[in-house]
């Protein structure tokens, strides 16, 4: 319940405050959001599997975000930022899909 409330609260904060993204963060924010989504879906799947662990969730969430940002940063330094961003998005997208598939099987048995 708190988790859902937290999500709603975050969305409302973003809508109300409408902050500008700092220039330095601009390339990393979208990829960080996708990485965090991956962690969230993984956690939901683990919760439905009954193996949810808040420590694991926190660590995976933070490390997902950091590693995604790091990869993009590295790609920018190497001059292949665009391609690496695409690669990260693809990998995270595949994971999100497989996680959602597992969640779906849990919830709808299909």
């Amino acid at each position: 319940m708190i988790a859902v409330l937290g999500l709603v609260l975050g969305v409302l904060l973003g809508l109300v405050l409408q902050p500008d993204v700092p220039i330095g963060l601009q390339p990393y924010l979208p990829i960080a959001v996708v990485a965090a989504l991956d962690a969230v879906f993984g956690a939901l799947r683990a919760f439905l599997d009954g193996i949810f662990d808040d420590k694991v969730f926190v660590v995976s969430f933070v490390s997902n975000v950091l590693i995604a940002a790091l990869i993009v940063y590295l790609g920018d330094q190497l001059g292949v930022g665009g391609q690496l961003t695409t690669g990260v998005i693809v990998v995270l997208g595949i994971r999100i899909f497989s996680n959602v598939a597992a969640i779906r099987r849990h919830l709808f048995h299909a």
Partner: protein
Amino acid sequence: MSAQDERDSAGEGPERELHSGPDSEGHTEPESGAERLAAGLRQRPSRGQLAAGVLLAALGFAAVVQVQSNTQDATYVGARQDELIALINSLSLASDRSENEIAQLQETRRSLLDDTESRQTALERSEQLADERGILAGTLAAAGPGVRVTVTDAGGAVGANNLVNGIQELRDAGAEAIEINGQVRVVAQTAIRDLDEGGVQIDGTRVEAPYVIEAIGSPPTLSGGLQIARGFRDEVLRLEGTVRIEEVDSLELTAVVDPVPPEYAEPAPTE
């Protein structure tokens, strides 16, 4: 169940206690994912829930911020440096081209303006010329200062000769336009002859005494020209006529002649 075992081993103490609520009632561990989810939603706050809540809040916040910054300027956010450089280059090329175009168009406009202006000047000049020529040729009505000469002919002896002399004197004194009796404009082609029944015929129009000669020019000069010794005035007085000369500030000569294009004469080639 293996899932419950794992939860027990991984989860914290409070979480297990939370699950004891439904467990004690139904005495069944939630088996399916849906039941577990519903149970999770009914859970009282726990540390795990709190952590998940905080992280999800951060996620929601970041996602909304990103979506909004994306909708603000969807074109260039996320563009790489080299893409942006290429974009700027193409933009500056386009603006260079536009500036060139502006310069050309301004040049064209200036030349067109010059053209128009010179045309306008030529037009004004030719209109002015036409006016001057029209007054000289008698095809336009003329107005201006001058003299009005009234000649009576009590003896019936004043005739074409005297009028021709008078006109000649006026022209000598610089008359620019001459009209007789308000009927006939005196021009270069004007001819005057006596009529047997009295009066004179000027350019086919019969004119009778008293003759009123109106001439536009410098009034004192004109009036002086007519009064030189043994000139027009003396001659008319000798023939028992009278001459009255008025200097007028504003005369209006309304009689005009029809312009007749020359039949034989044509402009001589100029060097």
